[in-house]
């Protein structure tokens, strides 16, 4: 039998056996009960808000806003989604974010991966200096204003590239990636190839990259999720509404558009309906904005965990 809890060693004396079993079983049983109870509670606290958003987005507005939707969707409707998909700002933001995410991730990869490989080579002369050069920026920086002025000086303000270049490389990702190369590309492979006259660039392209699909996937996901969720760069570097990514549109619709609680007394019926529509739009909007991540979640989750663990190995 493979059941872990059943395997109790049989001591020789019967008295001892009883005493020990009682103690072991007693305290560990209460431990298991408390532990399971709190795990279930944690599970509920984390998932219920997510679940609620989804069922609310499909339910009848009056029922949701009166607090009558709690466990199951009621008064099924798709009107909120229709309104989201008919909102030109949301669609444009979505399209912009897709562009920023795609181009941004490609640039990130082209900058990070080759550098990480070079940094993984223990025979790289000046490696310590390069490492210091990169790592120092993790702990100290010029701050928001000087960075803004650099972007302005480069003429990037309010351009597509303001969303791509300032965060083109994450030192954290560079280190994760370097650790992977260090631990997973056998030294003998390099030595053999060098003996055959293989250049570094060729070794990198034809041997290292095919052996590193796992870390490449992790990096793509790290960067892509970052771009998808990012709103700071847009807030600071963009003015033109036509270039705004989804997150800025969401900020306007989800965060800034709050009904004024003081107006409650003399609300007119039209106003109530408008408020309802605005509030209901939000539920559907949260779902629509998170759909790509929801779909990718199973893959993302596996790789993110892997990435964090690779990164935690001190190199």
């Amino acid at each position, binding site marked *: 039998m493979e059941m872990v809890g059943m395997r109790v060693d049989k001591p020789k004396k019967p008295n001892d056996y009883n005493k020990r079993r009682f103690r072991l079983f007693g305290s560990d049983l209460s431990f298991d009960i408390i532990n399971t109870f709190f795990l279930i509670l944690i599970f509920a606290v984390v998932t219920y808000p997510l679940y609620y958003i989804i069922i609310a987005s499909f339910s009848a507005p009056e029922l949701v806003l009166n607090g009558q939707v709690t466990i199951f969707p009621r008064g099924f409707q798709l009107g909120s989604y229709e309104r989201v998909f008919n909102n030109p700002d949301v669609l444009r933001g979505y399209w912009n974010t897709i562009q920023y995410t795609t181009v941004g991730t490609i640039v990130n990869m082209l900058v990070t991966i080759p550098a990480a490989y070079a940094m993984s080579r223990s*025979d790289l002369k000046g490696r310590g200096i390069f490492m210091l050069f990169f790592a120092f920026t993790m702990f100290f920086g010029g*701050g928001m204003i000087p960075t803004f002025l650099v972007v302005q000086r480069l003429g990037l303000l309010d351009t597509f590239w303001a969303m791509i270049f300032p965060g083109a490389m994450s030192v954290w990702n560079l280190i994760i990636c370097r650790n992977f190369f260090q631990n997973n590309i056998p030294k003998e492979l390099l030595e053999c190839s060098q003996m055959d006259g293989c250049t570094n660039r060729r070794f990198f392209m034809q041997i290292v990259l095919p052996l590193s699909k796992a870390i490449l996937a992790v990096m793509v996901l790290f960067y892509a999720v970052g771009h998808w969720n990012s709103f700071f760069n847009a807030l600071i570097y963009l003015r033109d509404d036509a270039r705004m990514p989804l997150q800025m549109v969401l900020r306007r619709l989800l965060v800034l558009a709050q009904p004024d609680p003081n107006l409650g007394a003399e609300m007119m019926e039209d106003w109530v309906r408008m408020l309802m529509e605005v509030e209901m739009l939000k539920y559907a909007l949260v779902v629509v904005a998170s759909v790509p991540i929801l779909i990718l979640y199973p893959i993302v989750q596996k790789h993110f965990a892997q990435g964090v663990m690779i990164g935690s190995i001190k190199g």
Partner: protein
Amino acid sequence: MIDAMPKVKRKGKGVLAYLKENWDLYVMLVPAVAFIAIFAYWPMYGVLMAFQNFNPFQGIFGSPWVGLAHFERFFGTPTAMRIIMNTVILSVQTLIFTFPAPIILAIMLHYCISKRFSRIVQSATYFPFFIATVVLVGMMHLFFSPSVGIVNHALEALGGQRIVFMADAAWFRPLFVGSRVWQGTGFGAIIFIAALAGVDPTLYEAATIDGASKWNRIRHIDLPTIMPTIIIMLILSLGSIMSVGFEQVFLMQNPRNTEVSEIIATYVYRMGLMEGRFSFAAAVGLFNSVVNFVLLIIVNFIAKKVSSTSLW
């Protein structure tokens, strides 16, 4: 030359020969070095403007130097103390709750009686990490809305008063910290789960034979094993104690809670980018970065002394 050659060959090649063979490694580094130089080191040079009356047309070279005038002006305002305290309080409260939570969750999952349930809880708690900050704050507005939010409906049903959570200064910190715990605990736990997986199983066997309960195993086996990981994570969090996330505070900020929600980062944004006082804002930002950096060095030094675990 001829004499030196065998010796050089044994020790490794000369610099020129090395470069001739490995120049491509340096080419691979060029884009990364360039981006870091431009977007990380150039601003560090640009921060000199904190000691000037910076004028964008004259640049760092042409602008007049004013020494510490901006720092003096900042510390002379009554706002200074308030936003520094707001930053510290919010950071410390966040740290107190968000630091132990992942460790506790990791241990709970480690001792979960069902592997499958453990995996389900892990996946579920992990998900909020991927929710964008904007969406997170939007969700909070939906849940905590005074008139139509589910939290206030529940409060009323239980006989309580409706609360205007998102526009109430007293609720700003609890909501901020709570949402950070909700969003980050599952993700933060990964690293500790990995560390716990590294516990030597023979230790458990020995402990079980000696009759150690699970509580005892946690205290005497698990915690000591993951202590180096805990210390590294603590150094990192303490080092960034003054840089609590700008995005979420900024998004949760509104005129009714600024007295507690105005932190250094949001103040820098407002002064610099809204009001155009570049030098003044850069000075405040620099103060923040320096404090962070010094804190990190101090914490790292102490950790090295006390536990021989440190970042460098």
